[in-house]
């Protein structure tokens, strides 16, 4: 069970959270302007990164807020957490984990 740093509540066990998939996929402002390929890319295409993955979590059994995290999917270590709407933080090469 992962230990997840909620930016609002602090470290909490994974059971309190709901995974929200890849982060930074903004819903198009005007979906009607997209062709089918572009729309399918929004709906379904995922980077599925092997490495540092920007992803969403919701503290579902806590403050109920969404936030973003950078996690290394080859180690499951969290490298950063940040609030929804904030830019993906740059990582120093050392990484480190929570």
């Amino acid at each position: 069970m992962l230990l997840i740093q909620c930016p609002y509540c602090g470290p909490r066990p994974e059971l309190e959270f709901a995974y929200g998939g890849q982060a930074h996929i903004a819903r198009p402002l005007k979906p009607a302007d997209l062709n089918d390929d572009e729309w399918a890319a929004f709906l379904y295409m995922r980077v599925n990164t092997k490495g540092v993955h920007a992803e969403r979590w919701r503290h579902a059994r806590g403050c109920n807020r969404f936030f973003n995290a950078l996690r290394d999917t080859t180690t499951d270590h969290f490298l950063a957490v940040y609030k929804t709407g904030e830019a993906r933080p740059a990582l120093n090469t050392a990484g480190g984990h929570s």
Partner: protein
Amino acid sequence: MQRFSAFSIIRRGLTGNESWRPQWRRASPKASYDAIIVGGGGHGLGAAYYLAKEHGLTNIAVIEKGWIGGGNTGRNTTIIRSNYLFDESAALYDHSVKLWEDLSQVLNYNVMFSPRGVMMLAHNVHDIQVLKRHVHANRCNGVDNEWLSAEQAKEFCPPLNISPDIRYPVLGAALQRRGGTARHDAVAWGYARAADALGVDIIENCEVTGFQKDAHGAIEAVQTTRGLIRTKKVGVSAAGNTSVVLGLAGVSLPLESFPLQALVSEPIKPAFPCVVMSNTIHAYISQSDKGELVIGAGTDAYTSYTQRGGLHINTHTLDAICELFPMFRRMQMLRNWGGIVDVTPDRSPIIAKTPVPGLYVNCGWGTGGFKATPGSANVFAWTIARDEPHPINAPFTIERFRDGFLIDEAAAAAVAH
């Protein structure tokens, strides 16, 4: 290929077993091949075998970054069934079951396909509706699947707890008698040995690092940790790592890779005659020929390539098993492991051409790829050889996500309201 039989065992045994030879050659990459399969699991080795056997492509290689059969082929709970809801799925999975039925003889390798019956439990009215829909659809598609009352289910699987007093009582079950299990490692080895005998090179410890394309954007070579290999056709069967491999060719896919854990108990004398699955309370169980109870459940919640997951998944899996089979509460977990499963949005696989000419992909099997091994390998080989899908895998394209022709087996088992 040294023929396997009781006779050969005795003959070679009498001479000290000295005359056995490697089951497949330890090949090194040649400069070029007519086709390359990336991924030495059951699906990839099987595709190579069928390419050689049925399509006459023998100058081909399977390249595997680790050891063959070391991915999900060697990490699954070996359940085989074809009682899927949609016509497209039933056709694909049943094609596979039919190949399973003769696979040991065809490969001259005992893959221990054991059609002991797969029983799926209903715990509420909605489950009954969904499973009966499966039963009817399967019957009309020529796939065996029958409805059992709770009492009949217990008769088929005596350890099953059908007491009405448990939290989610068993109200009935759908039984596919032709379903069962097989010996997972033997599938990889059997295909490897048979493909090797047809001239296929099986190259381990060889990881793809890139693709080389010609002026038209078509594949012309694969870069690997063991050098550049020229080829015009590449079939990727890399399961959880498919996104990574296809990413090297600039192809993105609707895939996410999740950890899937499974476990076995200590071996016991025969105590469990069939396979039992419960989607509602999340667990499935069978007993291996070695005597271990083989148990699995759902994935962890997040994408990961670590091949491990959390303790809470195990606790949840085993509370479900203990609820359904309370006599197993004193059994002990011997070993737990994790695989990486690549999941599509509609929980159905992709076996298709990609936007890159000469590049083909077989992926998205999620938690259920083992059962499809022979069938998927068979139609994937066809697709690679003819540059067009076999009618069975024609619906399983990447484009279905763009066009909305999903084959949504997961949604079809929608939750109760």
